[in-house]
């Protein structure tokens, strides 16, 4: 028989707060995490602001922070979020011989984790020294000498995309299935979905799943700026992320770590863990259209949503809330609205759907799981997080986006959707736990 998959712990480090409670409080009180960039001098960039994690100090969270002292920001956030999630789930990360009833060989990790920031000082300096603008060629001798003098082995290693998962293995002692994926902005939704499938198939009892990412570095912001994906509302960072409005002009780049503890129902019951919600459906698809654009008819998004609903065994009438990808870009919000209408038909207008990115920004690889956590909180508190800054609705976008105010509502079953650059789409369906 297939195992049911439940959530028994959650942890979050994001621009609105360094744990779930303060982030949720921020979402409920209209706070936002945006401000001018402090991680590097972005004062002459097309976009001069972002949504940064603030005052996060790993040594206040972990007993053994020295093991992780070279971590990139993504790994730091993953560790902070995992620590919080494990504590809630009753998984011991403090002792070498844990007595929490979880077999480490049956506990795995699945992260949608991003690469670490490159050593931009060495990167830029070496190119400046080595580039010959007359010949338009690199002097590789100069370049090699400069990089060897400036780069450190530790920093280089920590850029690798598998390092966040490696650090979590050290923290938790997990020896089960360890995987890491990076499907752009859909990565952590995918990680949670694939991890749930592993539990359902009986390949693990517990999966530490989620994502971690920071692209707030000189090349990351440059890349998104050149794609014109970022808002350039430099005079008003706090209102720049405005999904579904007529004046939306791009997303606000954030960063963070988000972790959920997934567990087979039998394991959770055996341990007496508190069950926060159940994951009942997962759908994944590809647009197979263009790397630069979403499919015009939302083909891939629709397919992933339908696959998730079918997998969950629920109908469109069962969904009480949709947690959107809602990036605040012209294209996403339009195509996503179209996709919801295609899947839900006339009922689309009756389902509230909102975007927490309006408050904590776009956490890229970490964003899907961060938003999933807000879905669990919505079920627990019977309250929907709003879409903030929605004062000038786009006339073409006419769904109920829960504008500007959290809302009390009956929330049993929730659909969470994430769409990655390049057309990788992932959708989860979660439900209030019913024994």
């Amino acid at each position: 028989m297939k195992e049911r998959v439940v959530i028994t712990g959650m942890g979050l480090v994001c621009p609105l707060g360094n744990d779930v409670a303060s982030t949720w409080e921020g979402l409920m009180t209209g706070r936002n995490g945006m401000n001018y960039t402090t991680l590097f001098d972005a004062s002459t960039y097309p976009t001069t602001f972002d949504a940064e994690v603030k005052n996060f100090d790993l040594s206040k969270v972990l007993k053994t922070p020295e093991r992780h002292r070279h971590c990139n920001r993504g790994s730091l956030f993953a560790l902070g979020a995992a620590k919080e999630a494990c504590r809630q789930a009753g998984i011991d990360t403090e002792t070498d011989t844990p007595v929490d009833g979880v077999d480490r060989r049956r506990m795995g990790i699945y992260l949608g984790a991003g690469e670490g920031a490159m050593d931009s000082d060495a990167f830029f300096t070496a190119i400046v020294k080595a580039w010959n603008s007359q010949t338009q060629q690199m002097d590789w001798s100069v370049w090699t000498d400069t990089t060897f003098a400036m780069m450190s082995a530790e920093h280089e290693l920590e850029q690798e995309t598998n390092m966040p998962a490696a650090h979590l293995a050290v923290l938790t002692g997990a020896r089960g299935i360890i995987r890491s994926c990076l499907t752009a902005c859909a990565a952590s939704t995918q990680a949670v979905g694939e991890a749930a499938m592993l539990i359902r198939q009986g390949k693990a009892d517990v999966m530490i799943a989620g994502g971690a990412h920071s692209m707030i570095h000189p090349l990351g912001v440059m890349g998104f700026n050149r794609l014109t994906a970022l808002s350039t509302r430099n005079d008003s960072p706090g209102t720049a992320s405005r999904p579904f409005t007529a004046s939306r002009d791009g997303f606000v780049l954030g960063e963070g770590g988000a972790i959920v503890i997934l567990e087979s129902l039998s394991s959770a019951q055996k341990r007496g863990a508190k069950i926060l919600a159940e994951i009942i459906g997962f759908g994944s698809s590809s647009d197979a259209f263009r790397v630069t654009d979403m499919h015009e008819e939302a083909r891939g998004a629709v397919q992933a949503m339908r696959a998730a609903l079918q997998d969950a065994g629920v109908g469109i009438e069962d969904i009480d809330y949709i947690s959107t990808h809602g990036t605040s870009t012209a294209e996403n919000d339009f195509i996503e609205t179209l996709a919801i209408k295609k899947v839900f038909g006339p009922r689309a207008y009756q389902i509230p759907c909102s975007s927490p990115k309006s408050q904590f920004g776009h956490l890229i690889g970490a964003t899907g799981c961060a938003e999933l956590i807000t879905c669990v909180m919505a079920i627990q508190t019977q309250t929907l997080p709003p879409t903030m800054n929605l004062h000038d609705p786009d006339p073409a976008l006419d769904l109920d986006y829960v504008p500007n105010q959290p809302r009390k509502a009956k929330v049993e079953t929730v659909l969470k959707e994430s769409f990655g650059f390049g057309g990788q789409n992932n959708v989860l369906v979660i439900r209030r736990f019913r024994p």
Partner: protein
Amino acid sequence: MAGRRVVITAVGTVSPLGLTSRQMWEGLLQGRCGIGRIRAFDPVKMPCQIAGEVPEYNIRDYVPKSYRKAAKLMCRDIELSVIAADEAVRSAGLVTKTINPEHPTLPSERTGIDFASGIISCELPEIAPSVAVSAENGRFDMKKWGREGIPTVTPLWLLKYLPNMLACHIGIIHDIQGPSNTITCGEVSSHIAVSEGAEMIQRGDADIVLAGGGEAKVNPLLMVRQCLLKRSTFSGNHNPAAACRPFDAKADGSVFGEGAGVLILEDLHWARQRGASILAEYAGGASSAAAITDDYIHLQDGEGLEIAICQALEEAKVRPEELDLIIPTGTAIPSDDRIEAAVLEKILGSAVSRVPVWPLKGQLSHTGSASGALDIAAAVLAIQNQTIGAAFNLETPVDGCRLLFPQKPATRSVRTVLCCGYSFGGQTAAVVLKRYEEPK
């Protein structure tokens, strides 16, 4: 859907031994070596000046006319992967949109892709002019970069280097609309991608999955990284063919390279129905982690590898002594090889003298996220040809190692093969393949 069997109906590889799997296979058996002095850039000041680079190609030969413009958005990792996918799809006889634009028969929504990717470093000469104009008195100036450098960078720059673009381009070219994932788990990425691709079929979410991985590590930034981490050999520059020596007493580091490998995985019933020729069966896979750390480096402790191999064998219902071939990681980094050898000896027990262990990196180099896909493709070809090759550059096994390293290629019965791997960072993985047997 439980019990759906997953078979492999084709492979495609791009490797330092050639642009096709046939060239790779022949090169492996003939004892050719794909490692040479770096051509991608002038490595004169690098401590390690050698790499495994693939032969020259023209990407336009592998991209349909309608998609040629998008080829400009492909970094080398993507190009290699697109070429390997082209071979795999054609060889499987799948009629995709690219093979026959008028009458494709591929069930697009039931076809998935699970692809491994490394961290992709940008091409330095491409961005260098924009960086160079940002210098003030010979020093890089962030403010000037913002004002004058950034506007000159090609607008779609970022899309060229996102790890998920390998899967996306292949998906667009062949119209793959089903489940899709990009595994970024270092050097075990493609072992994991193949396992997860098989799981997509087992759980009923797809009937066909393109699984594998690609990485082009011969980028100056990546080569510097391997040197800084002291994983590259510094002593092989004058004799590249003898430089990478997995499990050999004289080994002192790996040689990095580039490649891509794609397997066509199919649900058995689907494959039989369409009359596909079946090369091998996917029998099991698992992964784990080495969860110990010495200062900041995550060391292989052996246990993570042992767990992955034992669980994969258990899933495949294969006892260690039933294995006919092991394709190990064998990086030629002495500390890693020693631990891997100890784990394999322990698992094999008394069968250690009978089960051949065939490391490939001496000939193929270490292609990072692609390496598992090349290994698994070689395992499929070993089953198909009932042949295994010789361990390359293996003269005296590392201290007391009792593993059986084949000294020359031989035709023999190959029914079950284990491919195993570990990443620098601690993840481990194993995949077990079987020769396909008709259901009774």
